[in-house]
């Protein structure tokens, strides 16, 4: 009975507690890539808006459903956002699957399902809320709402995965709140939250957990 044995016991307890409640195979690299997609999406969005301004297109929900696509700024931006989201989710899935394989873990476990559910519940409520905002024509509220609800979803899901996700969520939510104060700069906050923050926290996760 030595001190090392007790230390080992404590380390083992901590390890088992984490492994049995948290899904630790989440890939940091996928966060970095998601950030890059978001920045590219943001740049495309910027050009769409700029072109719309030059051509004098304005927006309302009625116009959104009746305007042809090439003049329809909202639909173009929504399309870019959806492409960014789909790319990010696909990347995250495959990189996480690869990481799980490396650690000899399954990807669909009780822990990962709980993680996904706890992430999707606030996110889908927030998503619907944002769509309703869009329906009422509060276009300036769309970016902050997305950031706030995404941040809350991350914070909610962070209990079931790597702790870094909590700080990503907190930062996104704060950026969303700031964006609410500075309405009209949605695109910049969007790029900061979904782009730069993901690259930043993805890198932290990559250095802290992936590289081992």
């Amino acid at each position, binding site marked *: 009975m030595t001190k090392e044995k007790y230390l080992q*016991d404590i380390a083992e307890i901590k390890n088992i507690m984490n492994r049995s409640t948290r899904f630790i195979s989440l890939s940091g690299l996928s966060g970095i890539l998601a950030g890059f997609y978001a920045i590219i999406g943001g740049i495309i969005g910027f050009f769409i808006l700029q072109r719309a301004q030059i051509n004098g297109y304005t927006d309302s929900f009625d116009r959104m459903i009746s305007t042809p696509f090439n003049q329809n700024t909202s639909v173009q931006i929504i399309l870019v956002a959806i492409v960014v989201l789909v790319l990010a989710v696909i990347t995250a899935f495959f990189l996480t699957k690869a990481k799980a394989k490396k650690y000899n873990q399954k990807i669909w476990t009780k822990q990962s399902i709980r993680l996904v559910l706890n992430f999707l519940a606030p996110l889908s409520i927030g998503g619907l809320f944002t769509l309703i905002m869009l329906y009422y024509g509060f276009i300036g509220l769309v970016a902050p709402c997305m950031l706030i609800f995404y941040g809350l979803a991350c914070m909610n899901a962070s209990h079931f995965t790597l702790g870094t996700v909590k700080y990503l969520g907190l930062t996104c939510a704060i950026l969303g709140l700031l964006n609410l104060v500075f309405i009209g700069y949605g695109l910049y906050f969007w790029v900061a939250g979904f782009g730069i923050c993901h690259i930043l926290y993805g890198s932290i996760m990559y250095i802290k957990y992936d590289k081992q």
Partner: protein
Amino acid sequence: MSIIDKLNKAFDHRIRLGIMSILIVNDAADFKQLKEELGVTDGNLASHTKALEKEKYIRVEKSFIGRKPNTKYIITQHGKEAFTSHINALEKLIKNG
């Protein structure tokens, strides 16, 4: 009473420590899950869960999922307290040692 005496004999084994660690942070765990997390054989796990059950640190719920029997393990209040004080004693030993 020295600190060493406060260490619980029932937890003085890797697998029992593992079982308690899983059950204290999860509402419940079934036999298969415990087996996979701890990487032990059926017989080995069964003897250790039985020992913990005898001490009333965990309780067992047997049910059927479809036609398959399912054994679920849940930590008792008594078990929670015993495990927490065991960990506290471990920590104290490390600090003073």
